[in-house]
């Protein structure tokens, strides 16, 4: 059974139809990439899945349970985390407080502290800046924080919206390693990326989105070799 199953999803902004009947599945343990040009609707899909936007129609199931109408904060409790586009860190909270917020749904203090240690290990820069207000971090530092914050909830599945945006090359590699790590640790990943090459190189399967519809889906390795994909998204 698919861990996350989206069926015939339609999303409107006012009268504009941004998502035009999209269906896809994410199985437990997979890394799924969702690629597509600017404005294709990737962000919209992620936001709809986590309940920030309500769809016009369609069905979203998580671990066999329908969550189409479940409010976002409940979905999080079910074990889904979301690294939002544009980072959206809490600017007036310190780095540390941001991380603690990430563990909002968790109770055990010791476990939370343990997770914080893990995050600091992954992103030493965050530990250096733990008492700085998040709003004054550089763009890349904020991206790390957003990622760390999402990991704090120990999610079963994590949705990432362009996690490598604005990161230095060394860190882009790092981020993709971290994603693989996270996945190896048993967390399922749904990844939206502009860096399609990297995304496909770590993904199991991928969906290609064009103006609100899925036009292709296959094993990542197959898509990497697909000529049209190469031309349109890999810049080759």
């Amino acid at each position, binding site marked *: 059974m698919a861990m996350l199953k989206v069926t015939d999803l339609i999303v409107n902004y006012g009268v504009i139809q941004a998502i035009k009947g999209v269906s896809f599945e994410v199985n437990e343990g997979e890394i799924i990439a969702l690629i597509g040009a600017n404005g294709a609707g990737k962000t919209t899909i992620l936001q709809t899945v986590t309940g920030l936007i309500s769809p016009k129609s369609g069905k979203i199931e998580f671990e066999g349970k329908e969550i189409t109408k479940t409010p976002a904060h409940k979905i999080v409790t079910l074990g889904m985390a979301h690294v*939002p586009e544009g980072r959206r860190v809490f600017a007036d909270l310190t780095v540390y407080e941001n991380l603690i917020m990430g563990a909002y*749904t968790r109770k055990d203090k010791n476990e939370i502290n343990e997770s914080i240690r893990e995050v600091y290990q992954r992103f030493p820069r965050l530990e250096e800046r733990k008492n700085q207000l998040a709003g004054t971090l550089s763009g890349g530092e904020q991206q790390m924080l957003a990622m760390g914050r999402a990991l704090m909830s120990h999610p079963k599945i994590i949705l990432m919206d362009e996690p490598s945006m604005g990161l230095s090359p060394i860190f882009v590699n790092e981020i993709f390693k971290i994603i693989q790590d996270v996945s190896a640790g048993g967390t399922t990943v749904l990844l939206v990326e502009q860096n399609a090459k990297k995304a496909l190189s770590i993904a199991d399967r991928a969906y290609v989105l064009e103006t609100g519809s899925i036009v292709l889906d296959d094993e990542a390795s197959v898509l990497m070799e697909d000529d049209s994909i190469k031309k349109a998204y890999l810049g080759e």
Partner: protein
Amino acid sequence: MDLVNSILEQLINGLRTGSIYALIALGYTMVYGIAKMINFAHGDIIMVGAYALYVFVGLLGLHPVIAVLLTIVVCSVLGITIEKVAYKPLRNATPLAVLITAIGVSYLLQNLSLLIFKATPIPFGSIIRVPSVKVGSLNISGITIVTLVVTTVSMIALTLFINKSKAGRAMRAVSEDKGAAELMGVNVNQTISLTFAIGSALAAVAGILFISQYETLLPTMGALPGIKAFVAAVLGGIGSIPGAMLGGIILGIIESLSKAYISTQLADAIVFGILVIVLLVKPSGLLGKLKIEKV
């Protein structure tokens, strides 16, 4: 000696009003800090609190302690209801739209109470009987002391709550980015309701102390203290809880001193003049953080 004494007395007068302003300002600042809206109806919730106490004690003859608790409940429920009905549908609108709705709510509460309780002021004796304290030749009334204590305790409790507790942190997160907070698993609606509940409970307490000090009920009684408290909150740095307290007390003292030694007619002008000067020097109020926008 005489002048010193008179100044001291006027300072205590300032403390008397200032502590009430401070208490009201706490609620104002709390709601502002989290819901990012100027709740213009805050003053009128104070009025409702005062009338509620009057109904419970004066008309129904309940024990004052029970009446006080009920009053707090009534105001909290009212605060939550107002938020749900009038502010929540405007979550995504401009903050100004919410401000205007709040003004509408303020009119509504005033006119409702005008219809129910009529325009004639209703006398209502204080339920707080604390003897006044003599310090040298100075006399500090019991109610002033009670108000100061309540305000200080509320301020400390509120500061700790917002900064140290999980719910408080959630509130701050909600105030910055509701969507992101939701993604952390925070129930945004519940958090905002809680904010209004606490803010309104503070208004209820302010109403109780206000009526105990002035002993007269009027449908419009909340408007002026509401505005003054708003000024106090801004003076102290809106959103800053200790700032609200400081602002309230300073406002009370400036008012009292300028009435006594300069001119009553110009007292408001002086208060606002000082406010303008303070803000020009410190654009985010006395204790407010200056938010630097990272570019």
